[in-house]
């Protein structure tokens, strides 16, 4: 029951937008497409055996410390979820008597909500479609965490100089000719990296080869405006914790509404002029013989 952009237009158009919103002639904001060279991952629940080599490799590649959790009196590197030191995590799902594993990491949306809300563009689309982080432009407002439909950006709560932490597809390793570390070490091809078109082709090939093994198609092909990280599932995507998004990019609604209201800076300027004129007029006429002192 989420609000779609079309719905928003309908509502905006029909509701009387008295003083605040001048007539809304909002143009539906067009979705930003993914590029042919966009780097991504393809995860396949039917292949993952839960070895967590990806998690270990990710820690090493990104120099992130272990997320130490005491379990039964002994310390383990056991992140419950993505967090300030964990860029990828393997979780266990169960659905209808079946169980398996799912890897979580940044989805690298074609049209990311985190980048849309980021005040100074600390999170932004970089080369090869990677949603990347520039700490110099971050003030730590955490709006990205509110906006991300996948709850991906994480904050270093324990630090006094906290940063936002998320997967950047090991872009620091590209210069060495290496791709994402998680895909490099996966012993089962459960997570593979490549350009998005390649991954889509591979996903379709797997779907065509064993159609009975999968349910729900390819998550991310069009979901949420398309993501660079794609999922194949044996049990659909709800049990994996992936939200049921429409094909519309998440930022589309807000940007349609906001730009619809503002029309660039036109509406604020018009409003300012109107306010100033009325105030000036009232101010002058009110000066002599004020009624307010009664």
């Amino acid at each position, binding site marked *: *029951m*989420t*609000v779609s952009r079309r719905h928003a237009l*309908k*509502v905006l158009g029909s*509701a009387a937008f008295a003083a*605040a*919103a001048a007539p809304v002639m909002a143009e539906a904001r067009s979705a930003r497409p993914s590029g042919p060279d966009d780097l991504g991952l393809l995860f396949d629940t039917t292949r993952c055996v839960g070895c967590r080599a990806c998690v270990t490799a990710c820690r090493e590649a990104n120099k992130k410390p272990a997320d130490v959790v005491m379990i039964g009196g002994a310390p383990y590197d056991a992140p419950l*979820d993505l*967090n300030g030191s964990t860029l990828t995590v393997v979780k266990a799902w169960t659905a209808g008597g079946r169980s398996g594993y799912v890897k979580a990491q940044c989805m690298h949306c074609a049209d990311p*909500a985190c980048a*849309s*809300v*980021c005040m*100074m563009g600390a999170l932004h689309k970089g080369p090869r479609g990677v949603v990347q982080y520039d*700490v*110099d432009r971050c*003030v*730590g*407002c*955490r*709006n990205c*965490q*509110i*906006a991300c*439909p996948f*709850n991906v950006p*994480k*904050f*270093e*709560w*324990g630090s*006094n100089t*906290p*940063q936002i932490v998320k997967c950047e597809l090991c872009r620091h390793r590209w210069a060495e000719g290496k791709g994402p570390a998680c895909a490099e070490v996966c012993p089962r091809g459960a997570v593979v990296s490549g350009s998005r078109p390649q991954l889509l082709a591979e996903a379709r090939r797997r779907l065509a080869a064993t159609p009975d093994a999968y349910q729900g198609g390819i998550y991310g092909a069009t979901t949420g405006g398309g993501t660079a990280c794609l999922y194949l599932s044996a049990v659909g995507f709800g049990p994996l*914790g992936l*939200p049921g*998004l429409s094909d519309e990019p*998440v*930022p589309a*609604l*807000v*940007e349609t*509404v*906001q730009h619809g209201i503002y029309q660039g800076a036109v509406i*604020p300027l018009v*409003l*300012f*002029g109107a*306010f*100033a004129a*009325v*105030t000036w007029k*009232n*101010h002058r006429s*009110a000066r002599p013989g*004020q*009624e*307010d*002192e009664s």
Partner: protein
Amino acid sequence: MTASTRPVGGTILTPAAKALLVLAVLGGAVGLYRLTQGLGATTAMNDGYPWGIWIAFDVAVGTGLASGGYALAFVVFILNRGRYHRLVRPALVTSLLGYAMAGVAVMFDLGRYWSVWRIPTHPGSWNGNSVLLEVALCMMAYTAVVFLELGPAWLEGLSASRRPERAQLAARWLPRAEKALPFLVALGLLLPTMHQSSLGSLMMMAGHKLHPLWHTALLPLHFLFTAFVMGFAVLYFESTFTGAAFKRPLETRLLARLGKYVAGVIIAFVVVRFVGLAVEGKAGLLVGSGLFSFLFWTETVLLLAAAALFLRPQTHLRPDQQLQAALLSMAGAALYRVDTFLVAYNPGNGWSYFPNVPEILFTLGLIATETFLYVLVVRKFPILAGVTPAPGRAVPAGLKQGATT
């Protein structure tokens, strides 16, 4: 009206003020702890609920309650109801303090607060799609505008100074401040229109994480409505509060005539909200959403009860009912905003949040600081109208005519 605005005077450190200072110091201690130990050690906020009560209450509700200056300016300057002029200065003071305190809360809430200077100074990096950027810039600008709108009050306060250079400064700048006023007022109307509505847009991006009863394309409009509701309600609250605290005559009759505006905004809000839900096909959620249905109806009932009270003729004569109506509408609108920012927000993935004691203490400390500063300002500066001038504190004759705020 300035002819009759006077500093209230009197002792600053009354027992009540001391109690407020104790709370403020406690809040300050929490703030210090946050600065040295970090957010994670101080607050219950987490990766699922990255915005706690410091944003949901201190900022979303705090600036809503600080919309008194905005709501009143709209009535006085746009609808040209000059009779409410005497309420303008105290309303602007609450606005200034409310926004300043929200700013303080934000500074403590930001993880990398030392980088915040980059926001106004690096327009090259501005993300034109960021609602929060607009809110941040607007709020910074508005705080400055409110301060300037109060310029005449500050200058009059200065002009009463015994030091001649201060009085001269005031005499030089007062006429200019007067001239600039229409433009300041226009800015003071535009900026809250922008950022109060954008506060609502802010939570629109939460998408499926915000309960559909709150997640609507009308969020900006709803936040504008609630800004007016809370702004008006604060006028009642603050007028009654200063009346009781400083043993001043109550402004019951003047406030009574404001009631129809408040009730009108409330009813408009409720109607638009229901219509919006119906158009978006969410009417079914009004019942059967458990806690969320309950919260929705609590907001609605609180607001409608307030509207009914505001419209009752008896209320016009009774300060107690006026206060009750104001408090009910404040509670309803504040609940709406807290729900939107926090309660109706559910990130999933098993996350939960409830503010911890330090967070609550910090918020209480901010409220206490704000109240203390309000009392301090009205005691020291000519904010409140209609008090017999304290002996020896008369405004110099030359300033009387020019001052027309």
